[in-house]
């Protein structure tokens, strides 16, 4: 206790300055190599985001910030607007459905990956990653060709096969947006799942079998709980991408389709109301952070056992 007190007393004279702490963390703790990336992100991400956020409180006219117009009214206006909530709800549920579909489709794929031999694994990985090599816009346009109109690939095929008589209306609906999002974001679900599932110990599944569990039970009781980190990571990434995606609802949802991201675009680029755009962008981004935080928090809670170590 006395030693502690004397250290505190001397600390008054030799208090480490914040600069000294920064200096120490950069050079002594080896953070130096991260500096270029940090600097880049500060200039090109943090500052623009801060600017955007600040616009949400100010009035901007013809690209010029009007001084002395700080107000929370813009947020209040957006939050009181029923249309805003409708649009936000659509962004949310479309994101949730796309995330769940990705999980449903991606999990078996990732599971197969871990069961297959070398060649199968390589082919599967190529199939999963290859779509990432083309632009999302190109792939979204491809979906327009497939889903669109009477002469779209899908409708003409189904009609030719005699399965339907009148063309299905899929393009420009929620379904088209969900189909597009699911396909385009699937790799971001599969890759973390593969990482999680490939790390598992096959002996544990054999152990479960020999303890009397069926294959299905073994899957639910042993395999799935241990792949939660992959599920969490995949869901967080896919949800964040789907919830904030702009190009897929723009192209597959049609002209009257609105999501939060589309509204931001409308306000900033079309209507040129930067304040309203900034308000919606801030709300979109902020709520996205909250949802991702909730997903990872739930995942961490479910994985609480992994924190326990021999004491």
């Amino acid at each position: 206790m006395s030693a502690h007190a004397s250290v505190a007393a001397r600390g008054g004279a030799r208090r480490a300055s914040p600069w000294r702490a920064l200096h120490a963390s950069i050079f002594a703790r080896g953070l130096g190599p991260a500096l270029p990336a940090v600097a880049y992100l500060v200039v090109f991400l943090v500052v623009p985001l801060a600017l955007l956020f600040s616009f949400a409180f100010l009035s901007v006219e013809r690209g010029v910030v009007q001084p002395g117009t700080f107000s929370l009214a813009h947020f209040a206006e957006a939050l009181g607007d029923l249309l805003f909530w409708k649009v936000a709800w659509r962004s949310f549920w479309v994101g949730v459905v796309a995330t769940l579909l990705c999980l449903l489709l991606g999990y078996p794929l990732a599971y197969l990956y871990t069961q297959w031999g070398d060649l199968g694994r390589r082919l599967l990985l190529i199939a999963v990653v290859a779509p990432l090599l083309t632009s999302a816009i190109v792939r979204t346009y491809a979906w327009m060709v497939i889903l669109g109109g009477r002469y779209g690939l899908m409708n003409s095929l189904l009609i030719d096969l005699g399965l339907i008589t009148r063309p299905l209306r899929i393009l420009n609906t929620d379904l088209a947006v969900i189909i597009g999002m699911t396909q385009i974001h699937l790799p971001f679900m599969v890759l973390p799942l593969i990482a999680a599932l490939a790390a598992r110990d096959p002996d544990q599944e054999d152990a479960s079998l020999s303890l009397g569990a069926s294959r299905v039970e073994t899957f639910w009781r042993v395999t799935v709980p241990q792949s939660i980190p992959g599920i969490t990571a995949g869901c967080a990434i896919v949800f964040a991408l789907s919830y904030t995606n702009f190009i897929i609802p723009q192209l597959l949802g049609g002209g009257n389709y609105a999501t939060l991201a589309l509204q931001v675009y409308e306000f900033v680029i079309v209507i040129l109301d930067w304040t309203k755009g900034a308000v919606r962008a801030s709300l979109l981004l902020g709520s996205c952070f909250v949802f991702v935080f909730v997903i990872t928090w739930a995942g961490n809670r479910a994985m609480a056992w992994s924190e326990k170590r021999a004491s």
Partner: protein
Amino acid sequence: MHVEIRNVDKTFGSLQVLRACSLTMSRGEVVSLLGPSGCGKTTLLRCIAGFVVPEQGEIVIDGEDVTLVPPNRRRVGFVFQSYALFPHLTVFQNVAYGLNVRRRPRSEIAARVRAALDLVALSEFADRYPAQLSGGQQQRVALARVFILEPEILLLDEPFNALDAKLRGTMQVELRKLVKRLGMTSIFVTHDQTEALTLSDRIAVMGAGTIEQLSEPLQVYDTPATTYVAGFIGSTNLLRRRVEDGRVELARGVTLPAAFKGEVSVVLRPENLLLSEPSAPGVAPAWEGTVSFVRPLGATVEYEVELGDHEALRVLDLREPHERPFAVGARVVVTLRNLEACVVLPAVTGP
């Protein structure tokens, strides 16, 4: 006849891991599969558990052919080398796993888990996770998780490998007592001959996918069936000789009857040999030679004696207190203690 393995073959890709393996065990017997790594012993164990399905042959438990029965429908307990505990479940939940799967009532599960944890002296650790336990404790959880289901057959894959030498010794004795008390037919895989000799009623010595010999521990040592077994168990001198007129001449004037013709190997255990000075009285010498290496082990001294003709013998001498061993380069006489203890086996041609 409780467990019977008949002519089991298994191939992985182009590698034949098991060829015509056969083994018969009676109820309550403890058999170890002993062999070097890659001899197929773990694969054979996995065949019995049902994790691996052999291409040929049958596995019969209690008169029922279970070769194609999935592992979850065999009453077989398997203890893994890595223990394969479920890291996301507590010790209690790990041990309860088999009963949970069988949908037993909660109260029964609690009581039986407590009993199983008492059996392995882990009651205070019920709420810990496997990562919070030491290696020895983890192994006991793995055992409790299997014991709670009262399997008729217990399979153990190198169960003591991950333990330090001292703990290994105690656990071997404990396990042997426990398994005998519970009357479980047990098979365990090991590459450690001391472990096999400690634990088993019978030892199956495996080499290159086949069981070379299945006998009681000391029988494997005293009367090895093949030169491979003789070389694998304990330390051995193998002398190459030719059979002439039904007898093998070991050394000048020392002959043994042989049941084989042609080339043979004679198994001479190092402790069956005695070293003495050339001038010592009353010694009927078999060989004369020069000490080329001395390994003082405390209670015993191991020598390597060169006989000339590129032949060398390993000799294990009991040492009197304060007795000085022979030095390297000393001329010595090697005598046989017991001629009958020498085993004559057909020599393996080739390397």
